[in-house]
């Protein structure tokens, strides 16, 4: 059976969740030559509210570009978490921004928190928290290679922000590797 990964990224409008999704899906489709789809449904009320993007990455052609069995859920805001991360299977990797971590969030077995905002602020720009999250996701899931992700970042972010975005990604990635090595039970997702 061909491998199919379903990934949902969500957050507050303006946090760069959709850009992060594009970087990941593009990395898979263009830089790793896999099959990948991305959808970013929104409602008329989306401005300033919660937004999400769903990515499917597969060895085969993606016939159904929607989530049926998510392997990764990543949330950067409380509202988005409540709205878009309702159900997950036992082995779904759930990644949240540390500031929204609440007791009872672990609906699956793997809940991981990332101090993405703090790390981004250390780098001088809170706006790159999305790249920290993406770096972390890359490290703990291994769905897309670091090289493809970095190529995709360089091809996707605005001119003159490449270095900052890559740095943020690297910090998130390093944090992810550290987290895997210190908590073996929460290792790589399938």
């Amino acid at each position: 059976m061909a491998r199919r990964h379903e990934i949902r990224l969500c957050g507050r409008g303006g946090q760069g969740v959709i850009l992060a999704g594009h970087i990941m899906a593009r990395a898979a489709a263009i830089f790793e030559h896999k099959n990948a789809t991305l959808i970013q449904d929104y409602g008329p009320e989306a401005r300033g509210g919660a937004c999400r993007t769903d990515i499917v990455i597969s060895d085969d052609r993606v016939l159904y570009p929607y989530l049926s069995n998510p392997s990764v859920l990543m949330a950067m805001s409380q509202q988005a978490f409540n709205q878009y991360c309702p159900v997950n299977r036992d082995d779904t990797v759930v990644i949240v921004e540390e500031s929204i971590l609440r007791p009872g969030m672990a609906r699956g077995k793997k809940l991981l928190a990332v101090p993405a905002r703090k790390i981004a602020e250390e780098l001088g720009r809170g706006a790159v928290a999305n790249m920290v999250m993406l770096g972390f996701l890359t490290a703990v899931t291994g769905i897309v290679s670091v090289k493809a992700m970095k190529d995709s970042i360089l091809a996707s972010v605005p001119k003159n922000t490449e270095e900052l975005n890559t740095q943020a990604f690297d910090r998130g990635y390093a944090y992810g590797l550290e987290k895997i090595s210190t908590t073996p039970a929460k290792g790589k997702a399938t």
Partner: protein
Amino acid sequence: MSDGKYLSGEFFMSGDEACAEGAINAGCRFFAGYPITPATEIAERMSERMPEVGGTYMQMEDELASMAAILGASWGGVKAMTATSGPGFSLMMENIGLGVMLETPCVVVDIQRAGPSTGLPTLTGQGDMMQARWGSHGCYSIIALAPNSPQELYDLTITAFNLSEQYRLPVLIMSEAATGHMYEKIVIRPVSEIEITARRKPVVPPDEYLPFEPGDDLVPSMASAGSGYRLHVTGLTHDERGYPTMTAEAQSKLVRRLIDKVERNKESIIRLEEDGIDDAEVVVCSYGISARVSLIAIEQARQEGIKVGLLRLITVWPFPEDRVREIAGHIGAFVVPEINCGQISLEVERCAGGKAKTVLVPHMGGRVHDPESILEVIRQVAR
């Protein structure tokens, strides 16, 4: 980006964006439209790209005007397109009929959402399929294509322009939110390798030119306004000079030809994707995103030992009547999943003519079918 203003290579793009790039590579140099979800990204991209390629983007006051503007641009000698969704498509109907009557090449894209009326603006539907065929008043034939991926939205937009020039009529692209808003890899070949059908210009001097005198294939040549050829175009029934002629005879001659130029060339217009039909007991007949989702059900059904084939309508109008009749003769049933309460299924049923059953798998819109719901119907009819 390569070749200066044209894209070529691999891109991660939405269906809407791919449609715009297809139009550009097909030679479209005029876009008029009014923003509407989920087709806005086509207008957005065209507003950026038209100036880059020396074309014109006009944001119109509404969809009536958008349709009128592209007809005018086409008569001015420029390839033209508009894009909309259900509510706007309704408003375009009168002028689509004018485009048919004036034999005006142009492309109209409908990224369908769930209706009726404002419905679900951001969510998918396929409820405009019959409107595409019959939405404007009077008798006519039309060409409509249904892509199932961003890549096909790119490819079929080029095809649509070529068909519109070849047969001189508005060609419709009937896509849906699920495909227009889906991002996927698309491959764009260098523009020099793309086959383009040029406008068929008059070969006679201006004093011998009759703007509606058909060639052997029933299609007249088309002079541009301001090129020295005398033109008279009217939505009234007209003779070969383009002058209004209010008789049943002129009506019969003109309207018959407008229909025949499509129907008699059906063989070369119609494109289908077929798989496993020869020994099938059940054939899933579908189009657009619904055909794509159906493949999951088909694969599963085959694993269960059911002989099921696929007939995907890439061209929806003119309808592939002959092929459906032929298939109906040797199968038990057609299964027709579509995101409406039964439109193309009616055509399938008509052509099957009682020889094979036709079972609709309806969906009221807002989502695509759960593949399981299609599989369940395949199982039932195969029993």
